[in-house]
């Protein structure tokens, strides 16, 4: 299991928190939630494209991961295990509700559209919100499994090996998926922003 706080002995490790949680310690559960909620939310948001659904997936993911701890045999870190469950919950939710369509760039105001297509410095010219939207659109070009792989790597900052553990794929498959995901994302972003 993960020892997320090995450097500071005053902070409980994941192992310690999980042991306390299994004995019904509410504070331990709150600490686990606080520690990983952000990573879980980012992954779920990237996979679902909206905040409400992402929070539902986070909630379901935490409940599933912590109520099936017997399935977590310590072969990976708790973070990897949790993100695996959360991302699967998000994919399931996406299948049942549909990944909500991101606003098309064509629908943006004309001036902003021009700014996106012909910017001098796209990273500075784009507002944060619009760029986030553009990234969401770029993710839409990936297949669900490519998206899950890329998001776990990029947003959750898992290593290749951890992504492999989280998705149940081989290392080579992860590398392949990331390679093609990168190609597609880059092609889309270049096309849209003329990088």
């Amino acid at each position: 299991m993960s020892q997320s706080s090995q450097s500071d002995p005053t902070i409980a490790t994941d192992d310690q928190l999980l042991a306390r949680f299994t004995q019904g310690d509410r504070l331990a559960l709150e600490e686990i939630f606080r520690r990983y909620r952000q990573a879980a939310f980012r992954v779920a948001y990237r996979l679902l494209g909206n905040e409400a659904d992402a929070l539902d997936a986070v909630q379901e993911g935490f409940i599933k991961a912590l109520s099936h701890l017997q399935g977590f045999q310590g072969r990976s870190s708790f973070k990897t295990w949790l993100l695996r469950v959360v991302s699967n919950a998000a994919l399931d939710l996406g299948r049942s509700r549909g990944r909500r369509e991101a606003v098309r760039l064509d629908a943006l105001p004309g001036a902003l559209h021009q700014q996106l297509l012909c910017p001098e410095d796209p990273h500075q010219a784009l507002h944060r919100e619009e760029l986030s939207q553009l990234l969401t659109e770029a993710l839409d070009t990936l297949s669900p499994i490519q998206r899950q792989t890329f998001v776990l790597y990029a947003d959750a900052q898992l290593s290749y090996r951890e992504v492999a553990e989280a998705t149940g794929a081989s290392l080579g498959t992860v590398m392949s998926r990331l390679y093609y995901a990168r190609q597609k994302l880059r092609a889309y972003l270049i096309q849209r922003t003329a990088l």
Partner: protein
Amino acid sequence: MNAFPPPSDRDDDLEQLAEVFRRHAPAEPSPAQWQRVQLAVSRALLRPAAPTPGFRPLLGMMAALLLLAVGGITWWTFVRTSPPPQALLPPEQLPSEPFAVAQAADITIHAVDIADADRIVLGRFLLGKLEFARAGEIEVVETRPDPAEGWTPTMAPQSAMPLIVASAQEP
């Protein structure tokens, strides 16, 4: 495999792209939203505190004793109230009327539920032939509102003939 970056290093190109995504991470939900999700997770995962293991054997013993006591009381009550077993008589020795029969004078009707009205014969004994009246042969003298039964007809109150009132068919 040469087409993909080695697993030990994070590919620079891929890492650059990942960094763009990280820099533009979705906005954090509000504290109230986190609170709501955390509450839902806690409710789903944490049950009310169970008794400590030290008390469990004691509770088990108490439950077993209670069950034993209830079983004993039930058995004793059954044994005390049950009639002694009787030997079955051969058919020729059975009484002609196995049940006691009450005479009319033995019975006083204090009240009758309207639902049972069609099961009771009021008036004289039915000695002769039973005749059925048609709807047109019955005269409704009056109807009065009844708070419980609605409109209840009163039919031929002075008639000397016994009257059996059949309940209306259920809709």
